[in-house]
């Protein structure tokens, strides 16, 4: 199961894209207070190429966030191994930057303080970190809010800060855990557009967990559809839609509509439990 990026130059046969993330027969069992252990992920294998935008889609409780946490190094899999650039993942690291649905900003820091936190931790000089951070804050559309505290911001603004804070330490991979799940529909659409615009600039590898089919199709090169618990990969759908993508054009595009319908059918189909070859 290979996931190729949409970057045309990397698609060429002569210059095969390098592998960024490998998930190798990963299973995850959680101890519950009851007698039975809960199998969250069952034998997941997945390869993600450098520069690919990959969404993991599935019903709630299918372990899609757990898979993201394993790649992040926040959770150690019960079985199997995950690798980033060929190295086994043993813990979190600045090469993989998370963005959470809960924002998880540092409330005692201002917007600027939050964004500067990573670069400062990486040893970037204060003045340089500040200049970089100010540029990033402007890029995510929050110029003028540098000295605001998280409490003073709306949900959409907080998520913009969280994105800037993660981009600030230049992770090779963005790990987005239902980042727009807590936002209202209008804000979500705006943030999806802005995320795509930002992503178009440097095409980082993105692993994006969502339960919204529209969101997954709109953003991704590949959509990994998962089954209900225990989470298995049911199918990987290539989204061959041109980039840069414009929402207004895409919504009218029959190819887009076909992908949405196809994936929705995959999710609804509970009789097939992912055992298909």
């Amino acid at each position, binding site marked *: 199961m290979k996931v190729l990026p949409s970057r045309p130059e990397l698609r060429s046969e002569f210059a095969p894209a390098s592998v960024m993330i490998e998930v190798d027969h990963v299973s995850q069992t959680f101890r519950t207070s009851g007698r039975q252990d809960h199998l969250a992920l069952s034998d997941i294998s997945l390869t993600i190429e450098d520069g690919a935008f990959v969404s993991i889609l599935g019903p709630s409780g299918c372990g899609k966030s757990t898979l993201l946490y394993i790649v*992040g*190094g*926040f959770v150690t899999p019960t079985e199997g191994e995950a690798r980033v650039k060929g190295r086994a993942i043993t*813990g*979190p*690291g*600045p090469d*993989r*930057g*998370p963005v*959470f649905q*809960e924002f*998880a*900003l*540092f*409330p*005692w*820091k201002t917007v600027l303080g939050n964004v500067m*936190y*990573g670069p400062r*931790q*990486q040893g970037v000089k204060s003045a340089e970190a500040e200049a970089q951070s100010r540029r990033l804050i402007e890029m995510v559309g929050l110029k003028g809010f540098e000295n605001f*505290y*998280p*409490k*003073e*911001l*709306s949900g*959409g*603004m907080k998520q913009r800060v969280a994105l800037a*804070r*993660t981009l600030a*330490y230049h*992770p090779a991979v963005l790990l987005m855990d239902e980042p727009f799940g807590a936002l209202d529909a*209008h*804000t979500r659409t*705006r*943030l999806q557009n802005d995320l795509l615009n930002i992503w178009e600039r440097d095409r980082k590898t993105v692993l994006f967990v969502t339960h919204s089919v529209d969101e997954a199709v709109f953003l991704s090169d590949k959509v990994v559809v998962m089954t209900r618990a225990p989470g298995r990969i049911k199918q990987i759908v290539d989204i061959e839609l041109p980039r840069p993508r414009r929402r207004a054009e895409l919504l009218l595009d029959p190819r887009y509509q076909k992908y949405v319908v196809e994936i929705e059918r995959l999710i609804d189909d509970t009789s097939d439990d992912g055992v298909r070859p």
Partner: protein
Amino acid sequence: MMARALVSRLAPLLACLGLLAVWQAASLMLGTDSFPTAIEAIRAVPSILGDKESLINILASLRRMAIAFSAALLFAIPLGLMMGRSRLVASFFNPLLMITYPVPKAALMPIIMLWLGVGDLAKMLVIFLGVSLPVIYHSFQGAKAVEEKMLWSGAAMGLSAPQRMIRIVLPAALPEILTGCRTGLVLALITMVTSEMIARQSGAGNILFNALDMGQYDTVYAMIIIIGAMGIGFDAAFEKLRSRLVRWSEPGFDIPLSFA
């Protein structure tokens, strides 16, 4: 409007004056020696504060209180934070705290005096115990409530576990810790006076009880006024410091802007 604002600002002062008036009237009506009038008690305040001996006593009290309070914070905050983040540490210390919590710390004073004598050390230990428990408890609660994802974000930036403790758990739990410290500060004053009542050697509590023994009732009441004023003063000063340190978490500061 102006008048109403003025009244609401003067309310605390008016309440104090009212209390003193009731005191004065009650004292005049009863007319016993052991209940001086408010004016007599207040008149005795400057003479206590002007007396070198008394001043040394009060300063000695404050010194013990300051040392014990600081030591308690240095001990209780790290312990509480570790309990909040480690199930093992919590399961070890929790039963100990549950046993010690309801015991009035002053009740331990006789035993402590047997071990450490009636000097500074015994009194400071009692204050230390009195302050530690609320601070441990609140630090524990604060650390426990820290969002896991916040720690993950820090870990992804490369913060090690001890760094996360100091640079994420500590500031994130600070509002809760300071609530514990505020309770601790008032308890420090209470245990300070209590310890000096039991081990009477020096201090503000000692002045009070000596005056009682000698039937100087105006001094007794004046000392109560002085100790009470110190309590109010410390609490107000600490509250000012607290609200400055955790301005970012204050309610009322919480007016989200409408902007995507």
